[in-house]
C-alpha cells in the first residue's frame, strides 16, 4: 500500500473530509515526509514536530501564493526549509558553537608552509564505489563525520545534504562567505584525510 493510502485508511471519517488544499489535508498527505525531512536535520523529534506545525500554519497563511497542485509537497518542503533555517539560526544564538579557529592546524599541516604543496599527496582511492556497499565502511564514515569540529560539521551538512546556497549558509551561520568557504574546505579536507587514513589508505598501493 502506498504511504498516502495507508494514512487515509488509518484516519477517522471526519478527518478525511479535507481536500488536499487545506492544512489538515496537507498533514495527512505530507506530514510524514515533512517530519522526516525535519528530523534528519534537527535530530530532536519534538522540534521536528513543531517545525511541521509551523510549516503547515505558514503554508495556510501563504496559500494564496500557491498555484498548481502537482508540486504541493515541493512547495511545503520549501517552506519547511525556511523554517529550518530560522530554527538553526535561533539555536545557534542560544547555544553558540565554538567559533572556528582562525587557524586550523590539522588542515594547515596538510600543506607545506613555504610553497603550499601537499605535504602528503592524496592517495589514489581504489574502488571507492565498492566501499559504499560495505557496512564496515559506513561505521568509519560515521566516525569520521563525528570527528569533525562541530561548526565545520554543521556547515558541511547544510551544504552537502541540504544543498543550502552560500547566501543561506551565511544567514544560518552568521558568517561572511569567505569564512563559510574556509569552514567547508576544512570539513572536506579533514573528512577526506580521515577516510584515507582509516579506510582507503589501507587498501591502496600508493602509500
Amino acid at each position, binding site marked *: 500500500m502506498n504511504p498516502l493510502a495507508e494514512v487515509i485508511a488509518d484516519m477517522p471519517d471526519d*478527518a478525511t473530509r*479535507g481536500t488536499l488544499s*487545506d*492544512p*489538515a489535508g496537507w*498533514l495527512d498527505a505530507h*506530514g*510524514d515526509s515533512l*517530519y*522526516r525531512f525535519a*528530523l*534528519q536535520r534537527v*535530530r530532536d*523529534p519534538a522540534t*521536528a*514536530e513543531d517545525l*511541521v*506545525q509551523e510549516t*503547515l*500554519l505558514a503554508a*495556510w497563511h501563504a496559500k494564496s501564493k500557491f498555484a498548481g497542485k502537482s508540486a504541493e509537497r515541493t512547495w511545503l518542503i520549501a517552506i519547511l526549509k525556511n523554517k529550518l533555517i530560522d530554527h538553526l539560526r535561533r539555536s545557534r544564538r542560544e547555544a553558540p558553537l565554538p567559533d572556528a579557529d582562525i587557524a586550523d592546524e590539522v588542515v594547515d599541516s*596538510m*600543506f607545506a608552509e613555504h*610553497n*603550499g*604543496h*601537499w605535504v602528503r*599527496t*592524496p*592517495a*589514489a*582511492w581504489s574502488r*571507492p564505489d565498492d566501499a*559504499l556497499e560495505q557496512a564496515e565502511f*559506513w561505521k568509519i*564514515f*560515521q566516525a569520521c*563525520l563525528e570527528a569533525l569540529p562541530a561548526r565545520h560539521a554543521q556547515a*558541511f*551538512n547544510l*551544504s*552537502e*545534504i541540504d544543498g543550502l*546556497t*552560500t547566501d543561506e*549558509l551565511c544567514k544560518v551561520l552568521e558568517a561572511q562567505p569567505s569564512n*563559510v*568557504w*574556509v569552514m*567547508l*574546505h576544512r570539513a*572536506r*579536507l579533514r*573528512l*577526506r584525510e580521515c*577516510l584515507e587514513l582509516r579506510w582507503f589508505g589501507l587498501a591502496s598501493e600508493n602509500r
Partner: protein
Amino acid sequence: MLSCKEVSLLLSRSRDQRLTWRERLGVRLHLLYCEGCRRLEKQLRFLHAAVRRFVASAGPAADARLSEDARRRIRDALPRD
C-alpha cells in the same frame, strides 16, 4: 601559479558556487600537472555522494513517522475551513 592549498580551497568552493573564469582557468592549469589535486577533485565528488547516501539510508529518520499524538496535536493547532 596557484598552490595546492589555494587549488584545494577553490575546488571545495566550486561545490558551492560557480568559480570565475579566471579561477577556473587557474585550477585547470594546476590540475594538468598536479596528480594530488586531481585526486582531491574526484574525492570531493565522492564525499558528496557518500554523505547523501549516508543520510538517506543510515540517517536517524529514514523510516520515521509522526506519532498519532503529534498528528492530533498538530491537527488541533491548524485552522479549519
